[in-house]
């Protein structure tokens, strides 16, 4: 049913339609509206046979989900930013134990400096934890990915993180088609665990594994993710057949067939990039986009095929691995490895800590990549003036003070020079 509805609320309704049996959550901006919405649905009786457990921390939230999942319940939780870091040990345990938990991540920057706004640092911090990570481009896709995520997680007995841009999607109110119960029931069968803690048939989960088998456990975890590459595509096709729309899959090309320049990005910024591409196409520039939906497993082969004909590939990402550059660009580079006549790779970091990514800035970036390519990582809309002054000061003066405070003072001086 079409509704004009906040992204978080629509996700809560979709998750409820997946009939989770245990939800444990601790609120953190910008995820809060999702778990509040689920709390309301349980309380008002719209979601039945579900235990909604308020816990004292994110570590407890995921630990309860692990226990519930091991006992055979469909378990769900959600978090963001520092909340994900606080549950980090449990994140690795959930995947290491092979428990099919679904977790929403309302993508947000990680401090310090403290920042509540959107970027992809939190998802990137757990990209090697063994979870599948799916990124939503729109709120419609956020709704649809959750429905696919439960099926995917439970088929493989591996947890899935659905990554949704905080505020930009979670707090946006727009037209979303929220499916009905019969549609979701037909797509998502009841949870049939591959392992379960049952007093009638006692077993233990979570053995200590030494050097004799640890490599093999990890190999199988990697093998499962390669299996997921096929399943993600199958479920996206099933989803399209059942619901009549494109959602999910490994990646999604846009005007990329004849493109000389292909942009690669993840999440909600792909919408703004598409509008920018349409404008550049009107000017005769052959440019396209590949939206990565599945970040883990990473669709290396599919990406290679999608960008094979391009001369330039521009990766735009909301994350930075200090000392390396853009982690997504690094992954894309793997797809280019050993490719004959591989396109030039240009890496750009944008939208950190909630900085708006605008069409004018993207226009400049995309044009610059071919006309005046840069070395290394480009920081979109970097305020070079205050960065330069800060570097200068720290070279001149040993006790130059805290960076964050210094930069804020310089920004204030630029905005109100009279106050200097």
């Amino acid at each position, binding site marked *: 049913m079409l509704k*004009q509805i*906040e992204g978080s609320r629509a996700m809560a309704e979709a998750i409820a339609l997946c009939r989770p049996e245990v939800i444990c959550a601790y609120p953190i901006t910008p995820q809060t509206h999702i778990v509040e919405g689920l709390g309301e649905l349980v309380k008002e009786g719209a979601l039945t046979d579900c235990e909604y457990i308020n816990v004292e921390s994110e570590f407890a939230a995921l630990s309860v989900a692990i226990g519930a999942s091991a006992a055979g319940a469909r378990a769900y939780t959600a978090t963001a930013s520092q909340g994900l870091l606080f549950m980090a040990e449990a994140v690795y345990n959930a995947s290491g134990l092979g428990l099919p938990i679904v977790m929403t991540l309302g993508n947000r920057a990680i401090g310090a400096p403290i920042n*509540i*706004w*959107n970027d992809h640092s939190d998802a990137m911090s757990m990209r090697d934890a063994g979870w599948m990570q799916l990124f939503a481009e*729109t709120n419609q896709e956020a709704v649809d990915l959750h429905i696919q995520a439960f099926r995917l997680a439970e088929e493989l007995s591996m947890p899935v993180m659905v990554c949704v841009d905080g*505020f*930009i999607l979670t*707090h*946006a*109110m*727009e*037209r979303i088609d929220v499916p009905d119960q019969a549609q979701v029931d037909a797509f998502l069968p009841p949870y049939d665990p591959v392992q379960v803690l049952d007093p009638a048939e006692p077993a233990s989960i979570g053995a200590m594994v030494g050097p004799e088998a640890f490599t093999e456990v990890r190999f199988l975890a990697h093998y499962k993710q390669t299996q997921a590459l096929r399943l993600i595509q199958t479920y996206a096709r099933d989803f399209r057949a059942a619901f009549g729309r494109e959602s999910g899959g490994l990646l999604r090309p846009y005007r990329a067939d004849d493109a000389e320049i292909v942009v690669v990005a993840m999440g*909600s*910024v792909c*919408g*703004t990039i*598409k*509008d920018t591409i349409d404008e550049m196409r009107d000017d005769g520039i052959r440019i396209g986009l590949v939206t990565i939906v599945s970040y883990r497993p990473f669709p290396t082969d599919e990406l290679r095929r999608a960008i094979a004909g391009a001369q330039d590939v521009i990766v735009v990402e909301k994350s930075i691995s200090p000392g390396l550059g853009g982690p997504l660009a690094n992954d894309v580079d793997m797809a280019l490895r050993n490719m004959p006549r591989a396109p030039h790779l240009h890496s750009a970091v944008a939208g950190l800590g*909630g900085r*708006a*990514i*605008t*069409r004018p800035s993207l226009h400049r970036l995309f044009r610059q990549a071919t006309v005046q390519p840069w070395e290394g990582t480009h920081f979109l809309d970097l305020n070079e003036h205050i960065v330069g002054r800060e570097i200068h000061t720290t070279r001149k003066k040993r006790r130059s003070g805290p960076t964050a405070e210094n930069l804020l003072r310089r920004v204030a001086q630029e905005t109100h020079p009279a106050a200097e």
Partner: protein
Amino acid sequence: MSGHDSTATPFTGSDGKPVMFQIRIHGRGGQGVVTAAEMLSVAGFLEGRHAQAFPSFGSERTGAPVVAFCRMATREIRLREPILEPDCLIVQDATLFKAIDVFAGLRPNGYLLVNTNKTFADLHIEQAAQRLPAGHAVIVPATELALKHVRRPVPNAALLGAFAALTEVVHFDSVKRAIEETFPGKIGAANIAAAEEAFDIVMAQERAIHAA
């Protein structure tokens, strides 16, 4: 293209291509700025439009400047940047003109709707208002109307009534339905009464301008 002005609609550009109508709402925490953008998007949705409402994502504190955005279009809205070039500015608190650059990016043929019981001259924004086409800049005492009907200083619903009269981007009936959906019962009825009076005030101003 006939080049006739009357063929232009809020959702069609001068070249006949579909365009978005973008509204930026300025106010202060506690004035229902985000709710206003959301109700506006519901009104657009009820008319079969695509509509997108979103806040400016700050730490929300009572009294702090707040911005919310609403886009409407006849096709899917993919854009996720803040509204940089609004077609309409709704200003819920006239003291903001001194604090921030409210007019930033306002389109030359845009609309301006200000909640105040003063004049544009009193607010020292007469020049900015006069740059817009005749009848595109109006004032409405929305806080007074809210106090009268809702008994609380929440000008948002009244301003949406004024918006419908000013721009005709959405029908007033859709605005009323959106207010009703957001505030069911007595509070909704009171907000609708405030919106109706604001709608009438702006319609009277528009008639006076076109008669002159």
